[in-house]
Every structure is written in structure tokens, then in C-alpha cells.
């Protein structure tokens, strides 16, 4: 039987168990959209309003479910608009497959209408990409694309399909001849017993051990193993920004977040640890601060799936090339039960100091304007740490990370590596499609919401119940904070005159409320949480609030400032 390339693409996606994609049609992808018309019962397509929204919604869907997210766009500007999302997925290890239309093969290289060399442009930001010019390549290339996206350290893949390949007919492979691509990892062997034992010996002999949790724990679904290790050897746990929600915030062993705006204890006590077990994280500069003064007294056990990360920033005493789950499972039986009460007490003391000097005033202010942290704290209490929080980039992102008490895995979705403003709304739409039963709440600034505000139309058209909380300070707050602290208060282009966001929402037939007074905050959050429709709160917060603690850029974690 003969079928077209576009039909083969649909068949291939169904075989990869794709039942949802985010996209935007245009000339060079029209044959694929035409084939999709007949596959609507198997694959739901969500029409975004900007292709960046498609890529980021695919990311949000993937991060909420663990499945591969799929985005579809046309050639030229459609394809180039995906790039920010693709770069985001690369830095945050999110498996997505982007499919773009391309001008017909005979026109390649001729500067044809809406021709752009998207494969060339995305080489540095994809794990793999490929241009299909012959329909018969589609089954194997799609299989390979999904395998590469999922395999090892996950990441983005792009497939570019010329228009003529989409309409070309070819002999359809019989069911059992359908090619299935399998990845072979050339750089991973068995975890050596000697290495595991060395790691276990270090942990067993440690008096001040510390666990660093990264995104890899969520990606490999190693949450239970992590809790088991932490409880068995009584080891305090600190999280990177992307590791948040892998370990329950309410657990006695959870000590908070690492890094630039992390908690005081995790920063200052990292350099007191004698053994650090780093699980599925990559020692990003926002975590380490000045590298030459980081963990100088600790032996590091690094469990990491990507060989290129071992030894990149920190030389581990033991590197275990494995995904977090495999690594922890292998290590766990070798680790002895232990207690470290004095070590835990030091974190308790640090937290008490942070509470006194920072947190108390942030989450329970009694006068002045509403503070970002008190909104997050109240939201955390009202949702009992069970919601999916999708934050944008900036001060509100750090406040959400610091003050929401995550109790369930895959509940903190934010752009960590790339720091993509405009991420939260489309990511939340993707997350809500993936987890329709869960409460999905956007935490965004007045700057970030305006970078992808058009995606409100998607929430409207699909009646997808994302709740949008704008923490509105009429400033690009994080940049303003840096200007205040490091640029002599020269506020260069950070103040914003904003539209009435509630009226904007209303134009999209989305209900909302503006909140300016503390007395009205609780009821407004209740009203938002009570609805099963999209909803927007425009909460006006203190204009010149700062996020502390803070490790200034280039300083060591010992230099963390509380004010």
C-alpha cells in the first residue's frame, strides 16, 4: 500500500504514542496539517498563537508528564520562532521533538519564500536534527528522533521535512517491518563495584554528608530512592532550582535550595560538608558561585548520566556514570544506617537565622504593600503544596522557588538554564494538558507575562484551566535589584508602564481580579482556586522589593548576603 510522507509522519507519531502536539500551520507544513485532519481522533492538536508558545508548551507538557513533547511549525519564521524553546529544552534536558516544514527540495539553497536553514541554525541547540527530503526516510528518522530525545540525558530534536517529501507517495512498510531505532550508549558500562564501594565508604565514614538534588532525579523518577538514601544514612538534602519537588519540602531532612537565591544553610554549609553526593545535577554557576572556593573540603560523589558533565566544573572523588535511579539503587544497599544530629542542628540554626533576618518579614508582613513572598506562602498553604507551580524568570521565580512548599514530584516547572522570560504561560498550558486533574498555577512578573501574553487565547479556545498570578511591581524586578545593588541605583530602562491586565484577560473572555490591598488577597486567591476555568490575578506588590539571601555573581557561597 502506498501512502504519503505526511500520512507516514502521522503513523510514526502514533507509534511513538504521541496523542498531543502544539503547533501553528503555514505554507510548507500544509500537507502535514492536511494529513493531521484525518488523525484528530488519535492526536489532539493545540493551536498556539506564536511558535515559541508551541515549543514551550511541549516543554511544559514533558516536564509535567515525563513524556516527549511535540511541536509543529512551518518553514522560515515558523521554524525560527521555535529556537528559543529548543535552546531552553537543551539546557534543561527536556525531551521534545520539533517538526518543521521546509520548502520543496529543488528550492533548497535558492532563498525561496520562507526558506531558512533551520537545521543549520539549530545544530548548536539540539541533541540531534535531520532534514528529510524523501518520504521513505520518515519512519526511521521519526523513530530515531524520539529515541535520541529520550535517551540518556534527554533533550530536544528537530526534524525538518521538505514539502515535496510530505506529499510524495511511497511503499508503506508492513507493520512488523516498521523500523525501530535503538540507541546504543557507547560511553556507559556497568557501574563498577569498586567505584560503588568507594562511594559507599565515603558516605559511611562521613560526619557531615550532604545530598545535592538535581533535575536528573525527576527525569529518572528516582524520588523514592532519594528519600531512602537520605533517611537510611540521615543525610541532609539540598536542591537545585530544577531539582525542586523531587524531595518533599516538609521532610525533616530537606534543608532548602542551593545557589544564588537559595537558602542560607545550604549555601554556607556546603563548604562545611565533608562528603557531597550530587545526584543528577551539573554544578551550574548559579549553584556554585565562585568555583575555586566551592566544596574545597568535600569529597564529591557525582551520579550523572552525561559523561561530559563528570569533571566539567567539579572534579569528583567518585564519578558514577548512571542515571539517578540506577545510581541510587546500586549505592543504597552499600550505605549503612547512620545518624548526624549535630550536623542537622547546624542547618536548623542557619534556618532560624534566615527566618529571623529574612523570611519572617517576607511571608508575614503586617504593613506596607503586598509582598511577593507572602502571596507564594499563602498559595502554598491554600494548596497544601500539591499544585504544579510554573514560574517565569526573575524575582517572582526565586520567590516561588523559595516559598512554595513542594510536596509532590514534577510540581516545579521553570526555565532554569536558559532563563527564558515568557516561559510560564505556554509551559503551564502544556503542563495542564498533561496533568488535567492537577491545579496548575502560573507565577509570572509583569514583564514576563507580556512576552507570551498571546497564549491566553489558547487557554480561552481550549478552556484549559491555568491560573495566572501576576506579581506586578511595574519593574523588571530582578534587573532593577541588580541595578540597585551593583549599578549605583541607575535604573536604566527597567520601569514599566503596564496595561490593565484584568482588562486584557477580559478581552480573552478570561475572568480575573486586580488585588492591591493585603486584606483582599486571601479571598482573591480562594476565588481563583475555586474555579475550573482559566483565571488571572493581577497582584500589585511592593515596587522595590529585593530577593535575599543572595550570593552576588562571582562571589563564593560563603559570601551569601542576608541583606
Amino acid at each position, binding site marked *: 500500500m502506498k501512502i504519503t510522507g505526511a500520512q507516514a509522519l502521522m503513523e510514526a507519531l502514533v507509534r511513538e504514542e504521541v496523542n498531543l502536539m502544539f503547533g501553528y500551520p503555514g505554507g510548507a507544513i500544509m500537507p502535514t496539517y492536511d494529513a493531521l485532519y484525518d488523525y484528530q481522533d488519535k492526536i489532539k492538536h493545540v493551536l498556539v498563537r506564536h511558535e515559541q508558545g508551541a515549543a514551550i508548551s511541549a516543554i511544559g507538557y514533558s516536564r509535567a508528564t515525563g513524556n516527549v513533547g511535540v511541536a509543529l511549525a512551518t518553514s522560515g519564521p515558523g521554524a525560527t520562532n521555535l529556537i528559543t524553546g529548543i535552546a531552553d529544552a537543551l539546557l534543561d534536558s527536556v525531551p521534545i521533538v520539533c517538526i518543521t516544514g521546509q520548502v520543496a527540495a529543488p528550492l533548497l539553497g535558492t532563498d525561496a519564500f520562507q526558506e531558512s536553514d533551520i*537545521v*543549520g541554525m539549530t*545544530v548548536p541547540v539540539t541533541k*540531534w536534527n535531520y532534514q528529510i527530503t524523501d518520504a521513505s526516510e520518515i519512519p526511521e528518522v521519526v523513530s530515531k528522533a524520539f529515541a535520541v530525545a529520550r535517551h540518556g540525558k534527554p533533550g530536544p530534536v528537530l526534524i525538518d521535512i521538505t514539502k515535496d517529501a510530505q506529499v510524495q507517495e511511497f511503499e508503506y512498510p508492513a507493520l512488523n517491518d516498521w523500523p525501530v531505532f535503538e540507541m546504543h550508549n*557507547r560511553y556507559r558500562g556497568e557501574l563498577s563495584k569498586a567505584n560503588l564501594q568507594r562511594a559507599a565508604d565515603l558516605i559511611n565514614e562521613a560526619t557531615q554528608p550532604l545530598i545535592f538534588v538535581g533535575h536528573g532525579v525527576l527525569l529518572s523518577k528516582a524520588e523514592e530512592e532519594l528519600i531512602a538514601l537520605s533517611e537510611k544514612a540521615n543525610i541532609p538534602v539540598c536542591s537545585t532550582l530544577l531539582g525542586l519537588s523531587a524531595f518533599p519540602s516538609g521532610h525533616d531532612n530537606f534543608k532548602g535550595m542551593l545557589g544564588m537565591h537559595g537558602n542560607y544553610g545550604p549555601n554556607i554549609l556546603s563548604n562545611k560538608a565533608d562528603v557531597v553526593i550530587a545526584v543528577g545535577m551539573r554544578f551550574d554557576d548559579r549553584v556554585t558561585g565562585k568555583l575555586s572556593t566551592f566544596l574545597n573540603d568535600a569529597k564529591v560523589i557525582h551520579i550523572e548520566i552525561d559523561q561530559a558533565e*563528570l*569533571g*566539567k566544573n567539579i572534579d569528583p572523588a567518585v564519578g558514577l556514570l548512571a542515571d539517578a535511579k540506577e545510581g541510587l539503587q546500586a549505592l543504597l544497599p552499600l550505605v549503612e544506617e547512620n545518624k548526624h544530629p549535630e550536623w542537622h542542628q547546624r542547618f536548623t540554626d542557619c534556618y532560624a537565622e534566615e527566618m529571623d533576618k529574612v523570611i519572617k518579614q517576607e511571608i508575614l508582613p503586617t504593613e506596607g504593600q503586598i509582598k511577593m513572598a507572602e502571596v507564594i506562602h499563602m498559595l502554598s498553604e491554600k494548596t497544601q503544596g500539591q499544585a504544579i507551580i510554573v514560574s517565569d524568570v526573575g524575582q517572582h521565580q526565586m520567590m516561588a522557588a523559595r516559598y512554595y512548599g513542594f510536596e509532590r514530584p514534577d510540581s516545579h516547572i521553570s526555565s532554569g538554564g536558559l532563563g527564558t522570560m515568557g516561559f510560564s504561560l505556554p509551559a503551564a498550558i502544556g503542563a495542564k494538558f498533561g496533568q488535567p486533574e492537577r491545579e496548575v498555577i502560573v507565577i509570572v512578573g509583569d514583564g514576563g507575562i507580556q512576552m507570551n501574553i498571546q497564549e491566553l487565547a489558547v487557554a480561552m479556545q481550549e478552556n484549559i484551566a491555568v491560573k495566572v498570578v501576576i506579581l506586578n511591581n511595574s519593574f523588571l524586578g530582578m534587573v532593577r535589584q541588580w541595578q540597585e545593588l551593583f549599578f549605583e541605583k541607575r535604573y536604566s530602562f527597567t520601569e514599566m508602564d503596564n496595561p490593565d491586565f484584568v482588562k486584557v484577560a477580559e478581552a480573552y473572555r478570561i475572568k480575573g481580579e486586580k488585588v492591591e490591598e493585603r486584606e483582599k488577597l486571601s479571598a482573591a486567591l480562594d476565588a481563583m482556586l475555586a474555579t475550573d476555568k482559566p483565571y488571572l490575578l493581577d497582584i500589585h506588590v511592593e515596587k522595590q522589593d529585593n530577593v535575599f539571601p543572595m550570593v552576588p555573581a562571582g562571589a563564593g557561597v560563603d559570601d551569601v548576603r542576608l541583606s
Partner: protein
Amino acid sequence: MEQKVYYLKLKSENALRVLQRISTVFSRNRFNIEELHVKETEEKGVSLFSVTIHAEPARIDNLKKQLRRIIEVLEVTITAK
């Protein structure tokens, strides 16, 4: 730190874009390619890239690991002059 001369041999699939993928790893790390030779080996479909660069010794291990991330690259060996 003092730079040394390094010779790299990369075996890869003989395919479009592989040269770009490899060169991107060099350029984003700001290694200039001093010499480059590419040819299909006796094994059909497998190319051999021979590359000469100047680099600080401390950066070579990471460069090798980044090159090994490329899906089409099958083997990387690096020798110092």
C-alpha cells in the same frame, strides 16, 4: 596557561551536517582549527576527521567529552604533539 598542539582523530557517520556539528563544538569553546582533513574510510559510510588545534591542556578532556556527545561521532582520540 601555555597552549599545546593537539591532533584529533574523529570517526563519524559520513553524513550531511557532521562537519558543522563538530566545528560548532570547537568554535563555541573558541578553539581555532589550524588544520582539517576529512575522508571516507575503507569502511563505507564512516568518515575520518583529522583536526589540529592549539589548546590549553586542562581543556582537552572536556572538549573530547563534548565531541563524544554528537550522535554521529563514533570515536574520538586526541594526542598531543
